[in-house]
């Protein structure tokens, strides 16, 4: 489904050039559950951002279902992210001004959809992550684990083909981490959602089908 060929990412300032990723070649088949591991600064998040069209590679090609997407316009990329990709972040990135259900509805705002349909999809997504009772709460009124479940609900509400999770358990204790991992595994197993997860946690990574290891921006096996 996702095909990365010879991906290279260089960050340039006036004086310094930093090679964040070098010659990355990855194929992510539909329905796969992959984890990306590596020490801090190895380029894991950069790789995930490129997969999610949030950042552009300096060189190389990213294709989704065989179509190159690295040269699309801002609007086309926004549409593609909205239709096909869901994100889960380590620090949740919920909007504190909005209620739980409004946060979950957010990706659907950018689609042509009635507000009632949007609301019912958001409630269904919250139900899937076991947060039906917290729809009117604000993020600041929730625990870390609950916030991450809201973030997962937001990621799945648009029924994306792939979820990109950047250290989704990084801020949680082990019990909460297991809960989140169970939700992600369930999505992969039952909904056939492709998941790419960045993690530092070896035990969690081992629960996925395949581990991609990065070191100093290069892929190691």
């Amino acid at each position, binding site marked *: 489904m996702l095909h990365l060929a010879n991906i290279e990412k260089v960050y340039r300032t006036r004086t310094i050039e930093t090679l964040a990723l070098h010659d990355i070649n990855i194929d992510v088949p539909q329905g796969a559950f992959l984890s990306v591991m590596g020490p801090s600064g190895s380029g894991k998040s950069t790789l995930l951002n490129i997969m999610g069209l*949030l950042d552009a590679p300096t060189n190389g090609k990213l294709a989704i279902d065989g179509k190159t997407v690295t040269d699309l316009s801002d*609007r086309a990329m*926004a*549409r593609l992210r909205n239709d096909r990709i869901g994100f889960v972040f380590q620090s949740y990135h919920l909007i504190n*001004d909005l209620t739980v259900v409004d946060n979950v509805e957010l*990706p659907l705002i*950018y689609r042509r959809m009635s507000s009632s349909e949007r609301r019912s999809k958001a409630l269904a997504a919250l139900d899937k992550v076991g947060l039906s009772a917290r729809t009117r709460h604000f993020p600041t009124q929730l625990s870390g684990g609950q916030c991450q479940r809201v973030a997962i609900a*937001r990621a799945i509400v648009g029924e994306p083909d792939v979820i990109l999770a950047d250290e989704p358990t990084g801020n949680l204790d082990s019990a909460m981490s297991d809960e989140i991992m169970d939700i992600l595994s369930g999505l992969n197993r039952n909904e056939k959602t492709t998941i790419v997860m960045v993690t530092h946690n070896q035990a969690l990574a081992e629960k996925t089908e395949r581990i991609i290891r990065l070191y100093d921006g290069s892929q190691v096996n």
Partner: protein
Amino acid sequence: MLKNYIKIAWKVLLRRKFFTFVSLFGIVFTLLVLMVVAAFIDNIFSPGKAGSRFDRTLLVRRIELKAERSSIYSSPGYYFLDRYVRPMQQPEMVTFHSRTGEAVSYVRGRKLELSVKHADAVFWDVMEFDFLEGRPYDQIEVENADHVAVITQRTAEQAFGEGSAVGELFETSDGTFRVVGVIPQEQIPSEDAHADMYVPSTLDNFTKSLDRLYGRYIGYVVVPDGVDDDLVKQEFDQRMEQVREDFKGEYDSIACLIGSPADNAINHLMPGRTQVHNRSLVLGGIVILMVLFMLFPAINLVNINISRIIERSSEVGVRRAFGASKRALVGQFLVENIVLTLIGGAIAFVLSIFVLDAITSSGLIPFGKFGFNLKVFLYAVALCLFFGVFSGVLPAYRMSRLHPVEALKGGEA
């Protein structure tokens, strides 16, 4: 999408109460001042009753005479108006009335100070007052120099209490007059025309003695409906040529302006008191001043908005990640700003009604009537929208340039 933007804007404003308060305070204060200024300008430039003859009236209220050793800038004299302006062919009507004089009356042991105006019978046809009781004095009464008077409602109440004033004798230091009519003072369209008591111009002794080219009269020249002002002004200029010819030995130069109340108001503000100023140029200047005045709070608001957007950069990143294009985000932030400004505008609108009412009833600006009207409301709406868009565009543009990854990290554009 727009509905969503408005909904989000509303939620954000409710949740961020301090920011909302600070922004609203700035917007309300600025708009309040601007609305009051707009009402003042409206009062100066279109004070008459809509559709009345006064709206088609040109004023002759200042004459400038220069001789070798002297210079006079004064109201025109009765003689000048009667000899050169009254015979004009183009106007529908011509009327003169004196500047106000003072008189005193003692009513039930109480001193009543009165402003008195001498006016001809045509004055009433031009003003088209809705008489509360009685009638205006007529041409015959003027020609006979009858001691008749038209007084304002306020004067009638002060002099005669709640009962009818018509037919009563009114003793003043100028003589005793029979009241023939009572008018509502609110209908007097300008300071020029305002008095507590109006009496026939033939009773004005000053007219017969000193008045020549200059004196203490004001001429009102009514332009016929559908006729261009310029035709009347051209005829007036021809008359002025005649005046210069007739007074060649006496004065080196004679200048007199004929113009609308707005032209006269502009002349009051500008140098060159009897020159015709370009009205749109002066109005343009006022508009530029107003825009400059608005710029200060708008720049402040731009600043607040930029800080707010930096504070919300994580939200920008999240929205970008979940499918918002740059354009959609600019739209969202602009709508947020416009909603905030319109709320501020609505509050300022309500407050300004009270403020204008207070100014009017305080008597701070004599003869000013600063009621709220549709035109002022439209000024206010236009100002609100300008304000909202202006203070939102730059922050929205900066926000749209935020890189999604940097935005998620809470970075700056």
